[in-house]
């Protein structure tokens, strides 16, 4: 059996709406509509950029990514050099080609070398009117939280100066509520995948998430509610040879996940910054001095990127997810030159092994559909997992 077994699964119509958004990336209809109404669109480069602040300023925050497939990177290579990850080069490629010409602002963070240099080159070579880069501490200490809060406040002030109006606490409250609702719904979607035979695949989930980055959350939440209802009513179920958790670098190509699932690997959870790490934790207003403080605390405490210290915080979260979703194995896909994740791999593999969870490590390029050598290695890994289970 090579493919996922789908027992009389019915078509999920709401998924097509998300797919339509993705098919028009980066100039999605929702985004163009926002611009037509005279409103601003900002691009953010990393999950440590607080979206709620932009949203509270009536800005549509969208995630800057490359195409979710392998692309020519001639200009990206010329400006960023080939030893920067292909994700950064893909983003820059699109920027240099004018695909992000509609942006009114770009927000980044000092998260990794690739991200900070992408921001540097974007600021120097692409004429986006507003730029802001946040210092993002690498620790979770109270001092680190105080520094990040200061940074978030500086960002808000910079934005207010640019826009010429104040971003009120009331507006922040509304944005927090909206984004928390998104997170809650995405968690519900994820929870379906805990089932022994999940009603939605990993690739389909990625399609939903891709759309979430490029459309207003107000509409996204409505559509996602419809999808959740549709899934509940569908009775759909997917089974496979082994339950897989996907970890590692940024990933937006659903074809990559599909290539695993086609071979019978049921991708039930992940720790990707385009998925679980994106919706991870809600903004908690209880106990916070202000909505801004609640936002800054959430973004620094969220399911961490490999950049953070100590790494065990990330490792423990991964293990918790792996156990919660009853995974048989972990597939690590690391984009070449994604150094923080490369560094973590030896320690993380050891930690997972101690839990009895095998890891397959794949070196990939951003946008790869997961064909050829990757398929061969995934196939062998699934066979090993099956044998282990017996």
């Amino acid at each position: 059996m090579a493919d996922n077994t789908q027992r009389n699964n019915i078509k999920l119509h709401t998924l097509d709406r998300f797919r339509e958004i993705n098919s028009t990336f980066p100039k999605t209809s929702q985004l163009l509509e926002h611009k037509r109404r005279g409103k601003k669109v900002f691009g953010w480069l990393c999950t440590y950029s607080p979206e709620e602040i932009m949203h509270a300023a009536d800005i549509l925050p969208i995630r800057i990514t490359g195409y979710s497939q392998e692309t020519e990177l001639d200009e990206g290579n010329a400006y960023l050099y080939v030893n920067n990850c292909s994700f950064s080069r893909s983003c820059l490629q699109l920027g240099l080609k004018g695909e992000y010409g509609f942006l009114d602002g770009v927000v980044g963070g000092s998260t990794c070398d690739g991200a900070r240099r992408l921001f540097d080159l974007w600021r120097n070579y692409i004429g986006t009117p507003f730029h802001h880069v946040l210092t993002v501490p690498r620790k979770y200490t109270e001092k680190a939280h105080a520094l990040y809060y200061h940074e978030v406040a500086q960002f808000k002030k910079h934005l207010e100066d640019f826009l010429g109006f104040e971003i009120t606490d009331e507006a922040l409250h509304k944005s927090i509520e909206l984004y928390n609702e998104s997170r809650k719904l995405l968690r519900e979607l994820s929870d379906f995948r805990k089932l022994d035979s999940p009603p939605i695949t990993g690739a389909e989930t990625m399609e939903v998430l891709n759309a979430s980055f490029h459309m207003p959350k107000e509409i996204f939440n409505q559509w996602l509610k419809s999808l959740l209802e549709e899934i509940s009513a569908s009775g759909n179920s997917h089974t496979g040879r082994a339950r897989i958790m996907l970890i590692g670098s940024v990933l937006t190509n659903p074809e990559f996940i599909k290539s695993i699932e086609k071979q019978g690997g049921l991708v039930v959870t992940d720790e990707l910054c385009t998925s679980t790490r994106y919706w991870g934790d809600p903004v908690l207003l209880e106990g916070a001095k202000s909505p801004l403080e609640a936002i800054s605390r959430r973004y620094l405490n969220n399911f961490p990127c490999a950049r953070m210290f100590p790494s065990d915080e990330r490792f423990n979260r991964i293990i918790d997810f792996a156990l919660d979703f009853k995974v048989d194995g972990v597939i690590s896909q690391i984009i070449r030159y994604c150094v923080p994740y490369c560094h973590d791999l030896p320690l993380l593999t050891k930690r997972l092994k101690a839990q009895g969870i095998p890891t397959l490590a794949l070196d990939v390029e951003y946008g790869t559909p997961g064909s050829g050598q990757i398929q061969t290695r995934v196939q062998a890994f699934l066979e090993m997992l099956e044998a282990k289970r017996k």
Partner: protein
Amino acid sequence: MTSAEQGNSKIKAIIRACRLIMRMNQALPEARKSEAMYYQMLINYFTRLLNARENGDFVAAHTVFFPAELIYAMDMVPMHAETTTWMTALFTGECSDILAAGAELGLAYEICTPHRGLAGAFALGVLPRPDVMLWSNMVCDNTAKSGELIMEICNCPGFFIDHPFKDSEYERNYLVGEMEDMVHFLEEKSGRKMDWDKLSEIVARMDRQIELVREVNELRKAVPTPFHSQGFLELVSSDYLFPGQPEAIEYLETLKQELADAVKEGKGAVSNERFRLMTLFLPPMHLMAFLEKISQEYGAVSVVEPFFTYWGEGRLDPTKPLESVAKKSYMIPEMRMYGPMDERALNSIVDCAKQYKVDGAIYYADVGCRHTCATIKLFKDTLNNIDVPVLTLDCDVVDPTATSEEEMGDKLEQFFELLEDR
């Protein structure tokens, strides 16, 4: 051989090589006294490390751009992990073994050789086991991520200093807080107390050390320039290994006087200075002698290295020792590569090119260094705007298999021809 014995044998190899180089150089008719002092400093540094266990010293391993002033002030023995690893590799020819050991640990080839090898060197026992591992995120993801694996390999505790990205009063205070926490950590682990008076003395000397490098740089503006092409590495090492140490002051005072005398006599580092060069980043260590030979042959000499010797503005205040150590972290030349690459950073290379009357720049593009290579286009455009051509040389700072003498020689020759035609 136990791993401790192996580590000691490698440190002994460094000491032997430094002694040999020192003796050979002293035999030359125009030997610099400062150069002999420099090698003696290295010998002393590694001898102290070699004897640390026997002397009951506390060894603190640390990564590059780490505030080693604090280690000295607590009377511990510092071990600059990158420098020690790569001097070992250079003098014992064991580069491939060290890199292979890093790969065996599961570190991918995308991780730069300096840091892949670091873990490999600890795993092989090439470096002595430290009592603590200290590291920071200055100046890239590799430094930020290297410490935890080393802690696990060496089974030792460690402390990570989170260096903020931008330069503001708030961020400097955060860095001071990080250093305070590290001092508490070291006090707890070593049972020693920070000697704040000693730290003040170190800071006072560090201030003088920076001033001396600035004075040396001023002398290097002379035409012909008095300091040889690869000499800047001595300036870099004097900060890496001996921040605020009396021997570093003595060395720099001597060097300054030698260069001042040379300038007075109109004596250049090369017999016929034809091309004044800006060096961007580090040339391959194994090609240093070859590059020095090329420099003499073509009359091409490095006069400024914006990211290694061109210190930022400011003075250190011994009455505020910890704040000054934090301030220094923002003044070190490499800091321009760490923070946002804005006009301030780009203007500094333009200023350097103008002040030092640079004819061309050589960009050593280390294949493993992401945060530097991403600036090739930006720096090239910036320098080309003021009519300074830039040669980019793909290389690896420590791996001799990446670049050959012949390849590098050909490219340099072509570049010098281009400069000549201008």
